[in-house]
């Protein structure tokens, strides 16, 4: 109970020097605010990144051309186009147990026009299994059939954004004919809005049969990458091994270290990305923790000044019966209250700021979730108060050791 009393007195005597108390807690306020903001934004960023990687749901395996020597930059970074993955390899992979879909991708960026409207977008060649793999719904029309792919059909399924960009006055463009690089495609379907996955806008693209894409749009005889969807009871690691075996056989490779392709899985990508973001947020936390430390030093400084200025008061209190312990507690309570209050304000600003970040990022179209675990709030408050107490120890000790006669004699 004596502590409670001390805290009440501490609040009273701090209230008497309001503006100084507020200034001295500024360091703590900024420290707590930035720690909380960094923590919250890191959680949201991690969530966003993992959400992008796992947005198709379930486990995906990707096959990209080029080996994965860790000490070399990927070939794509050097502007080298790898042509080693072939369309017929998809057929070899299709029969694998535990695989529900195998989709080749042929990507290119093109101007797509309908009448006088035109838009620059991704034109992607896929096979009929892409809907199963990417797990999207059709808003209107139909999806590709096996025949569409086999017969080099000139049909297209467009994303919601493309449909919007190409339509004149909100008119339905289903059944219209679009022009891609001089080739005419009939729009047979429009996909539901999907947002983004793998950091690509899934609504701003045109899907066409992969065969048509190779021959008439991209003019290539290879594919950019292949994705496989693993069934729920499928063993990702085993399937990766089997896929690697088949492609090695196709490419006549004996030594796995000489692979001219790389196989990744969403697990792997998610793990790698969360390691990277984890390291980033750890680093930022350390930087902001330094701000908190500086805040503590600031409080220590102010407490020393305060003890120096109030020597007379301390002498008086001692003369009236306060023992050293009570004087110690009085000053510890003051520094504790100061930094706890600073922590409280810092928490409020930190929560507000992180929330504002979430609102702004969401406004720009990302699915940014706001995270602020209660445990973070409690921990920051406890740490803030602890920093204040620790910072107050040395000044409070010097106050408690004052000789009342000496202290009272001062003018």
């Amino acid at each position, binding site marked *: 109970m004596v502590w409670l009393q001390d805290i009440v007195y501490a609040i009273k005597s701090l209230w008497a020097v309001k503006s100084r108390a507020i200034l001295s807690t500024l360091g703590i306020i900024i420290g707590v605010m930035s720690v909380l903001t960094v923590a919250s934004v890191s959680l949201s960023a991690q969530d966003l990144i993992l959400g992008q990687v796992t947005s198709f749901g379930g486990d995906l395996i990707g096959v990209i051309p080029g080996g994965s020597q860790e000490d070399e930059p990927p070939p794509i970074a050097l502007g080298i186009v790898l042509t080693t993955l072939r369309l017929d390899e998809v057929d070899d992979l299709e029969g694998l147990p535990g695989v529900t879909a195998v989709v080749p991708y042929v990507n290119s960026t093109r101007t797509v026009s309908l009448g006088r409207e035109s838009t620059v977008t991704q034109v992607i060649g896929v096979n009929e299994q892409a809907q199963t793999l990417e797990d999207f719904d059709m808003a209107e029309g139909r999806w590709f059939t096996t025949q569409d792919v086999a017969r080099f059909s000139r049909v297209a399924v467009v994303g919601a954004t493309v449909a919007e960009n190409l339509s004149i006055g909100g008119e339905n463009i289903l059944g219209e004919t679009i022009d891609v690089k001089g080739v005419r495609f009939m729009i047979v379907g429009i996909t539901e809005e999907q947002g983004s996955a793998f950091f690509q806008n899934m609504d701003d693209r045109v899907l066409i049969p992969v065969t048509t894409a190779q021959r008439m749009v991209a003019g290539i005889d290879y594919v950019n990458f292949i994705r496989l969807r693993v069934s729920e009871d499928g063993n990702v690691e085993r399937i990766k091994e089997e896929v690697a075996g088949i492609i090695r056989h196709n490419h006549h490779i004996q030594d796995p270290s000489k692979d001219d392709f790389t196989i990744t899985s969403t697990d792997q990508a998610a793990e790698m990305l969360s390691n990277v973001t984890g390291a980033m947020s750890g680093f930022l936390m350390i930087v902001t923790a330094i701000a908190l430390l500086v805040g503590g030093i600031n409080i220590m400084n102010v407490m020393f000044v305060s003890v120096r200025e109030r020597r007379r*008061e301390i002498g*008086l*209190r001692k003369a009236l*019966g*306060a023992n*050293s*312990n009570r004087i110690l507690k009085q000053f510890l309570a003051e520094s504790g209250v100061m930094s706890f209050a600073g922590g409280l304000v810092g928490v409020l600003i930190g929560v507000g700021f992180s929330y504002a970040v979430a609102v702004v990022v969401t406004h720009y179209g990302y699915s940014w979730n706001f995270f602020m675990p209660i445990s973070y709030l409690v921990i920051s408050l406890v740490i803030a108060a602890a920093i204040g107490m620790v910072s107050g120890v040395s000044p409070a000790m010097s106050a408690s050791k004052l000789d009342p*006669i000496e202290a009272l004699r001062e003018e």
Partner: protein
Amino acid sequence: MSKKEDFIKLKGVTKDYDIGEVTIRALRGVDLTIRQGEFAAIMGPSGCGKSTLMHILGFLARPSRGKYIFNGRDSSDFTDDELAVMRNMSIGFVFQAFNLLPRTSVLDNVLLPTNYSPNVDRAAVKERALHILDEVGLSHRLENHPNQLSGGEQQRVSIARALINDPSLIMADEPTGNLDSKATIEIMDILTALHQKGNTIVMVTHEKYLSGYCDRVINMNDGVVV
């Protein structure tokens, strides 16, 4: 409880201060008895040791040698915390410079010593503080801050503060040193009234005419009572 006669007893009390390598002997063997209910003035030129004697009587300092017996108890082996309790419960200090807490109401200033008292009944001490403030004529000033009061009023607050724990001994260190003559008379009248109610008061002063209020004058010179 000891007899009235030897309420306070000093026997061969000396006090040395070490200042660097020099030792200053502030008290050189003081023998002194103060009876209960006495109003004693300690007088003497500055540097005679009257302040040091005051500090020892008020448990702010310990004698270097000799015995200080207060109300039958030998205080020689009191711990620092026990000294603090003595200052809190048995002594009421009135200072020359009032020493009130700034930015703190009159009532809270009077209640200040009770913050450090064991087992305080908050409502009872507040009641008592109001009663004492009424007696010193400040019941209309309860919520004022010290800087809004005249010197005489401030010293009355500090007397009220000295009385809050009903001390056995009131120590007044030049209580009128910072006051004009009108306020001086006011304060001396209050001290006289307290004396008449049976309080023991020791007052340090160098104003000869003030000793007229007291029933005993203790003259000091060069660290001894003369």
